[in-house]
């Protein structure tokens, strides 16, 4: 899954950041800048490949120990400014698969990132995620999935999933072809972003932009959609209730809704 290193995260970060300076302090795998967008500064964060990462298992853009804690720090830094929006630019192949990572508590580093994003959201900061490539597994939980609004580029190279195709095939002892066939009939197993959108979990699918080499017009359009999503997040509640409200969610996440209704009836 991380056999080829993706450049999309860095490319979109740089395109959206423009002249905004990269915040110093590293690590080199976590880019952060305060980007002017819609008349205010937005804290943009991306995790990118770093061939010199001190953890060998986190050199292809994975979320490792340093990445999880750095995301947490960058989000909390931004959340010190009342109302400042946070933008996660997402192109993450997976969490880091390593023995040292497990020993040193990679789960906690990811929890720190989740905690920071969720806390910022609860404190009234619009948190928006823009998926430009892979958003897989624990890596997406740590970087992007706590956003009030998740946007994705409508592109074949964009994939939001519980586990990368190759890894999922290895773990479930199915072939990649079998997984793809299953995804055609079982919606939550599909790897393409259009199928994902039908689960009602996306705020918006942005079509008509070149995900690999965005033009100036593409970037302007995405910036405009991000600003609109930030404004929309400000109008809504600070929780994730919106993910169960759409027509798609009522159809394809019916059990998620039914469970909550029944819990409410039986709670007391």
């Amino acid at each position, binding site marked *: 899954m991380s056999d080829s290193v993706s450049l999309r995260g860095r490319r979109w970060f740089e395109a959206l950041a423009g002249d905004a300076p990269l915040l110093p302090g590293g690590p080199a795998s976590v880019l952060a800048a305060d980007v002017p967008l819609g008349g205010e500064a937005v804290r943009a964060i991306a995790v990118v490949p770093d061939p010199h990462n001190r953890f060998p*298992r986190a050199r292809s853009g994975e979320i490792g*120990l340093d990445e999880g804690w750095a995301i947490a720090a960058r989000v909390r830094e931004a959340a010190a400014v009342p109302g400042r929006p946070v933008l996660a630019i997402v192109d993450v192949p997976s969490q880091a698969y390593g023995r040292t990572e497990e020993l040193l508590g990679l*789960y906690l580093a990811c*929890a720190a990132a989740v*905690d920071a994003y969720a806390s910022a959201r609860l404190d009234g900061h619009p948190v928006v995620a823009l998926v430009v490539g892979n958003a897989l597994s624990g890596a997406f939980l740590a970087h992007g*999935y706590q956003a009030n609004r998740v946007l994705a580029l409508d592109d074949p190279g964009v994939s939001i999933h519980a586990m990368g195709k190759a890894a999922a095939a290895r773990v479930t002892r199915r072939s990649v072809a079998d997984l793809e066939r299953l995804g055609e009939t079982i919606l939550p197993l599909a790897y393409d972003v259009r199928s994902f959108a039908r689960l009602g979990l996306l705020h918006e699918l942005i079509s008509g932009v070149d995900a690999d080499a965005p033009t100036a017009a593409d970037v302007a359009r995405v910036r405009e959609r991000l600003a609109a999503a930030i404004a929309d997040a400000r109008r809504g509640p600070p929780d994730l209730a919106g993910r169960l409200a759409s027509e798609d969610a009522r159809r394809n996440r019916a059990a*998620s809704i039914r469970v909550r209704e029944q819990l409410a009836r039986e709670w007391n």
Partner: protein
Amino acid sequence: MEIIELRFPGDRPIARRAHVGVVGSGDLEVLLSPAGETTVTIRTSVDGFGPTWQATLARFFARHPVAARVEINDAGATPGVVSLRLAQALEGDAGMTSAATLLNRRSFVEMNARERARALLDAGSFRELLGPFEHVESPWLAPQGIVPQSDDGVVVARGAIDGVPAVVLAIEGAFQGGSTGEVSGAKIAGSLERALADAEAGRPIRPVLVFETGGVRLQEANLGLAAMAEIHAALVALRRHVPVVGVIAGLVGCFGGMSITAGLASRLIMTRQGRLGLNGPEVIEQNAGIAELDSRDQALIWSLTGGEVRTVTGLADTLVADDADALAAAVRAAFANGAPGPASSARIDFWRARLARLPEPATGAALASLWSGDRT
């Protein structure tokens, strides 16, 4: 998966519903309900054994001519196990509850999720929500030929802890590895959301999570992951009002996205048998190779992720012996101690300082010595 419908004569009505067993390897789940005649619906993972089911059940219902609606969800149980589970279910009907069994079984690790929830709540206060007879099961498994379980592997139990209203969310590790699917995940997320509503309204609530899981259920992939994000969101919100206590006892441990949930808990209680990590050992071996981690080296796995090293290094709070009373006491103490300080997941400077130096070699022992004496 095969579905078998059978019918047997019988005229002794049963008095109440009964539920025993788990859809785990070599085992089965049995649901009995009062009915005018005996009808049996079997969903089994093993095809082609219709005559064996017919013979086994005919023998059983000849000996016990009850009238009952019988639902069986089977994961390859032998005829002996089938008869045993049916007898257990009827035994409950005769008033001999599983308390008798519990008396000689105080190992918390060996308990199923329902028994664990009961063991952590004040005696007599257990009340299950969305229990087996409500049949809120996964809509995604049967279409893939996988036998579902009537509670989807999560027990939601209301009750009291030291007299204070509580909710225990216990994951059943024997069903699909305790994995988080749409329904099991929604049961946890939805319960935490209800607990949050209580806390926001000033009503006391003590939430406990009993982990036993490999993470997201890959057969429900994206809906499991979505539920996980909602669990995280609800937990972070709830933790602002009341402590949320996590228990990792074993045997499955706590891995995948659910380990992040554990990392968000206010307090974490583990046994020596419990393990906690983001990637399960098999997943690391499959993705990074056996040189990175040999998943069959049990001693190594426990030395990296087991309850002992997790508590010695401060990643978990309390190490408790595998005893139901000891676990219940530790949970009570975790709440009695009141609001904890900042959560581990929010102590960024502390953990980054710790990670500035790495243990050489990367072993639990080296880490314990490197990280000793810097607790604040």
